[in-house]
């Protein structure tokens, strides 16, 4: 399990490859499911040109690690990798990577979904968007994405 919160640009697929080459035993996992969240150039109907992502150093990592541990305990998975970017970013930048390796793809899908859902619900991050018109505002609530309750039910 590896959890990283970083200001540097995130290259999600380089991170997956690096993790596979350095941490995972070759030839043992049957598959990897990954989610990469990228910054959109719109939100709630407004054009967005930049974003600053604030976080609580220490607490953020701790809560992501808790969610990853729950996923490792809840499904038959071999490893979980999360890399999350903070600070200033721009449309189409990758913000977050969640990758889950497993011998069985059903477990990998379930666990990956669990991690991204709970990371979004519990990990302390705050988005401050800058619109094309130059106005800065804090995002007040996460865009609702179905699936959190559903994913929670599946955790054992």
């Amino acid at each position, binding site marked *: 399990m590896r959890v990283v919160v970083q200001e540097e640009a995130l290259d999600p697929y380089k991170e997956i490859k690096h993790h596979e080459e350095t941490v995972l035993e070759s030839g043992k996992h049957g598959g990897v499911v990954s989610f990469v*969240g990228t910054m959109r150039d719109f939100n709630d109907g407004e054009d967005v040109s930049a974003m600053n*992502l604030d976080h609580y150093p220490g607490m953020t990592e701790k809560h992501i690690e808790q969610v990853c541990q729950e996923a490792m305990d809840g499904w038959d998975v071999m490893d979980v990798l999360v890399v999350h970017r903070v600070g200033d970013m721009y449309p189409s930048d990758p913000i977050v990577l969640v990758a889950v390796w497993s011998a069985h793809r059903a477990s990998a899908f379930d666990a990956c979904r669990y991690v991204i859902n709970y990371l979004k619900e519990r990990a302390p991050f*705050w988005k401050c968007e800058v619109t094309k018109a130059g106005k800065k505002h804090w995002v*007040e*609530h996460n865009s609702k994405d179905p699936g959190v309750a559903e994913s929670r039910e599946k955790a054992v």
Partner: protein
Amino acid sequence: MEIDVKFFASLRERMGRTSDKVTLDGDVATVSDVWNQLSSEPIPNNILVAVNKEYTDLSQELKSGDEVAFFPPVTGG
């Protein structure tokens, strides 16, 4: 007792600072007492509270040296 306080996101801007230190008299104090020392206004409804980097609520009792954080709902990921 001495308490370290942190603010994040829009609340940090509203409070005009990223962190603070408060000193409370007596042996027993809660997160509420910390807030009341920081502001004359009631704590906004949606503000979340963490003590030593774990979510909790206003009624939690504190000990000297605890880190108390106040912040708006999370919007990350």
